[in-house]
């Protein structure tokens, strides 16, 4: 899998601007971020002081200027009231970019990364827009080194896993960004046969999961009340290896759903949980 590899995170090719809707001519001084991942990147590259507002889901880092702006249902007027010279979003419901363009505001659309190479590109793109290109390169080098170190640990070698998105058994395959992260640890995914279309987020049935009997269960929905106990209580799940061996591992919903610099922290936590259980 080349996608999760270690593409050059510093190269200028990333700046060709495929995702840029308009050239960022000058250094942005008033940035509005509607994407929690972009918020994390902006602060990681030291552009936090240039950020005037972030959306209601941007809960990291603690100092980010959280507002009630929404990234899901963005309101152009509300965004414009912060007088931004750059807006970063991960999603355009239809008229966000056009609406801001009409007001003369430049928008960067940075959709969810498909591979780690996309993350590197987005970091560089934000570094370029905010005049922090050197810091952006350093952040990318840090991510790259962290991933390489985690990959060399082989912590999850030979183990199978099921990552639960919600309690209707939506999950990820190994092909998504999140699945590639788990893959770096050497883990193999039980859901791949369920996703012939390659969408990456199939829904499984309970009996398939019980029958597949993964070694590890990661709960991406622990924040919504699921836990090792609730999983063990599910009909038929008590007989599973992961339940027997108490290898039900809650993971941080935010970190597992974002593609910014904290992928390293996320993987370190997963690795610690696996190794902690291994003994």
């Amino acid at each position, binding site marked *: 899998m080349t996608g999760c590899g270690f593409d050059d995170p510093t190269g200028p090719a990333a700046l060709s601007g495929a995702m840029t809707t308009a050239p960022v001519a000058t250094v942005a001084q008033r940035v509005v971020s509607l994407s929690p991942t972009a918020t994390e990147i902006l602060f990681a590259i030291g552009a936090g002081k240039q950020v005037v507002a972030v959306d209601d889901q941007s809960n990291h880092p603690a100092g980010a200027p959280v507002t009630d702006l929404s990234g899901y249902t963005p309101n152009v007027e509300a965004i414009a009231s912060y007088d931004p010279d750059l807006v970063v979003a991960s999603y355009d419901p239809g008229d966000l970019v056009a609406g801001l363009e009409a007001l003369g505001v430049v928008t960067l659309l940075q959709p969810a990364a498909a591979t780690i190479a996309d993350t590197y590109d987005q970091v560089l793109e934000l570094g370029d827009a905010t005049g922090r290109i050197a810091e952006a390169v350093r952040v990318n080098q840090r991510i790259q080194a962290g991933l390489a170190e985690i990959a060399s640990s082989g912590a999850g070698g030979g183990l199978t896993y099921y990552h639960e998105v919600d309690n*209707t*058994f939506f999950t990820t395959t190994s092909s998504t960004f999140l699945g590639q992260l788990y893959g770096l640890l050497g883990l193999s995914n039980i859901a791949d046969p369920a996703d012939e279309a390659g969408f990456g987020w199939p829904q*499984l049935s309970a009996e398939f999961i019980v*029958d597949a009997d993964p070694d590890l269960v990661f709960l991406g929905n622990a924040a919504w009340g699921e836990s090792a106990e609730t999983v063990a209580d*599910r*009909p038929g799940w008590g*007989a599973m290896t992961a339940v027997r061996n108490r290898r039900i591992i809650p993971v941080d919903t935010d970190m597992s759903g974002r593609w910014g610099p904290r992928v390293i922290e996320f993987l370190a936590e997963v690795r610690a949980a696996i190794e902690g259980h291994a003994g």
Partner: protein
Amino acid sequence: MTPTPPREPPGLRPVSLHGWWLVFGLGAVGLASMAGLVLGPADLGVGRVLVELADGLPFLEFNSGLGERQQAIVWEIRLPRVVLGLLVGAMLATAGGAYQGVFRNPLADPYLLGVAAGAGFGATVAIVTGAGDGIGVLDPVPLAAFAGALLAVALTYLVGATGGRLDPVTSLVLAGVAVASFFTAVQTFVQQRESETIRQVYFFVLGQLRTAGWDEVVLLAPYTVACLAVILAVRRRLDVLGVGDEEAGALGLEVRRMRLVTVVAASLGTAAAVAVSGLIGFVGIIVPHTVRLIFGTSYRVILPLTVLFGGAFLVAADLVARLVLQPAEIPIGVVTAFLGAPFFVVILRGARRAS
């Protein structure tokens, strides 16, 4: 208009429920249930599942060769799911049939009086407020859905009862439309405010049996049994009601009370079913109409058979939902409409040709 007693209305012609029709219905239930137990994304082997089921019967000892996890799949995942499918399917179909009789409206379905919108509203509030923690073992989403459904129907009845010059049936149906629209609007508003929960709400709205276990069966069974019993008990009077309110009154039927009892039983049962399964559409329309087209127009015949075929239909639809894209699942509401609608068209055309 005065009733003319000498001529017996067509609905009152004695129509008996043939024994073999019931056998046919029970056969459909048995067949669907068996298929639901032996087939699934986990390949357990048909023969081994049958042996395992036989081993579960009292006084019989067999070794199916199934491992512990595979036995758990049969007894704790597939069997409760089949039972729940029978209960929900029977309840929704029969409630639909009862509504069609009591409102004399072929388009009446179990959600006519706002049950669906109320349940959707209740579930959304529970999901959005994250009431999941702290209540303990009871999942708050079904409870809130149940409460919302009852609230909506009660509101419909209150509004509909003050209908003034409209006849009571029209007044109730219109009140149901208004209440449903109102609750849907409130639900949409609440869910827009908390957009990350939209998907959970969406799956409730599409209906599901996927997380079913014995707990849900135990919760639902008493409501289903009691409500079905009430509806079946009034089926004779539904035939009488078919001639019209005034005429039925002249024939000695207490129309208002009879309508209230039927609506309460059908709504309560529907609310309980919706609370555990989400909103499964179309069952309440096609099953009673299909039974009517095949077996005749008397509710004495329609309702008992609708109980059986409703259960069998939903179990079969759930099996399709599990198998089509296995090991992924599709929402059962999609299957009931996708399979049910064309099937119903075939039945309808056949019936028109025959008449």
